[in-house]
């Protein structure tokens, strides 16, 4: 708990800077309006005018928090204005995508370490695949899947999986290769089979690496799910919320959705962290 104070301090500094920035960035609008009305504004009038605009360039922290609280707790969770509802839509795609991505990533990693041809050929292309702007091909993926009759949650989950498989592959390959020569030699003196070596040595020693990449992967999954929401007509989910907020110039709503997304990501990462702690402790690897 020696983290709380430093984190609070940093947050405090950020909030202070944020308020200052709010005044600074929203002031043009106030001056412009005043100029159009032909009046002068003093600094004392300026500050409150910048902190409570309906369409601010930068909303003040309290506006974001108010909106966040209002749209989270202030209404029924089934309401379309509830962030819980939208958060759930995104979360379900995230979790499915994460499961697919992790599964694919682990399988690919296993293939890579057991098959030299795969090792040499897949890695460069996996890297190249991550340099493709997902936002550009997401609509195509949706359309192609749609044309073969796949609709609903799955297309979003696939885009989400596309983003999360890469960190898992990289981490798992590293992890499965982490046993040193001596540990491998030991099993050879026992004449252990390939699958025994995998189950008893490679897999356990890859666990810390796996969890590290799962944390990266689940955050990436969330981004993927949000991106996947846009080309499906963006009807529901945090991505839809971001977009419609943007489309109707509702800055405060954008920021609230943004923070909701980050909070969900943080919660997911923390959850993976808890599982990591449990598993590693049971395996005796956490000290």
């Amino acid at each position, binding site marked *: 708990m020696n983290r709380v104070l430093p984190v609070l301090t940093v947050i405090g500094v950020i909030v202070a800077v944020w308020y200052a920035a709010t005044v600074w960035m929203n002031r043009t609008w106030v001056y412009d309006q005043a100029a159009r009305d032909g009046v002068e504004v003093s600094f004392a009038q300026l500050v409150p005018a910048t902190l409570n605009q309906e369409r601010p360039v930068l909303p003040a922290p309290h506006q974001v928090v108010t909106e966040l609280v209002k749209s989270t707790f202030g209404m029924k969770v089934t309401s379309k204005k509830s962030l819980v509802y939208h958060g759930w839509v995104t979360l379900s795609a995230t979790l499915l995508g994460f499961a697919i991505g992790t599964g694919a990533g682990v399988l690919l990693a296993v293939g890579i370490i057991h098959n030299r041809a795969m090792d040499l050929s897949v890695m460069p292309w996996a890297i190249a695949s991550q340099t493709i702007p997902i936002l550009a091909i997401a609509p195509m993926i949706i359309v192609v899947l749609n044309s073969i009759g796949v609709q609903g949650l799955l297309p979003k989950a696939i885009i989400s999986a596309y983003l999360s498989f890469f960190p898992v592959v990289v981490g798992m390959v590293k992890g499965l290769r982490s046993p040193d020569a001596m540990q491998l030699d030991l099993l050879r003196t026992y004449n252990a089979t390939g699958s025994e070596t995998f189950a008893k040595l490679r897999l356990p020693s890859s666990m810390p690496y796996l969890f590290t990449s799962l944390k990266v992967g689940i955050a990436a999954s969330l981004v993927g799910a949000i991106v996947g929401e846009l080309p499906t007509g963006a009807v529901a989910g945090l991505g839809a919320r971001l977009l419609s907020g943007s489309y*109707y110039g509702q800055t405060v709503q954008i920021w609230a959705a943004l923070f909701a997304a980050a909070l969900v990501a943080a919660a997911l990462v923390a959850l993976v962290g808890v599982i990591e702690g449990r598993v590693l402790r049971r395996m005796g690897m956490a000290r």
Partner: protein
Amino acid sequence: EDVTLQLKWVTQAQFAGYYVAQAKGFYEEEGLNVTILPGGPDVAPTQVIAGGGADVVVDWMPSALAAREKGLALVNIAQPFKSSGMMLTCLKESGVTSPADFKGKTLGVWFGGNEYPFLNWMNKLGLKTDGTDVTVLKQGFNVDPLLQKQAACISTMTYNEYWQVIDAGVKPEDLITFKYEDEGVATLEDGLYVMEDKLADPAFAEKMVKFVRASMKGWKYAEANSDEAAMIVLENDETGAQTETHQKRMMGEIAKLTAGSNGALDEADYKRTVAALMSGGSDPVITKEPEGAWTHAITDAALN
């Protein structure tokens, strides 16, 4: 019978006719089960219909004709929108008072198939859009470029973005607008398009007749009961981002655009649109007169 309709944009009063027809049971009366898919900035209706994701799409004619030339045989089966709602909205303080002042200014334009009318207009004005005469800005989803004064003018629809500028606190008298209709460069907007090969199937054509008939009934109802239509749209908005005032006002404006149409495409409007698109300077949208890009068969059957 199932019909899937892909909209061009997010759920809003722009598409009230279809939502009304569904809510009021007009589709049901025809024995249709209609699914309405909202669009958005990342959805190209032409692509969706090419992929088989929809039976019929709402699209603007320039983009539909461009797709036809690319080999995607789209056919206009109905045209509920008579006039164009597109315009350029400028801040007075930027010094623009007439199209002659565009030179040297930055103008915001929508891309993704909506840029053709603009390019055509600029061509007509003799302004190059490569930055020498006017600087073109690909505008995003909202009116920020105008509010942040990143552009002198931005594209707006009479029924939507214009009001967002107003809602943001800019007074109408601080703005000056140039409607495409008034400048004589209007092209046809929201029409209904289907795939040519599917239309050859009499059963499908029959289904479309029913669909168009019910949809037009919806449109006419919406025109007459503007506020009720807006509320129906609001109920169908899944994002929860729309507001009542905005939708009611939008419905009022939309009614003005659909007013002149009974659903059948006016051949004169079509010719005007095609002529405009073919004259697009060095980079015309379509290079040859399209053949069979529209039909009255459906509307004739539906409206009589």
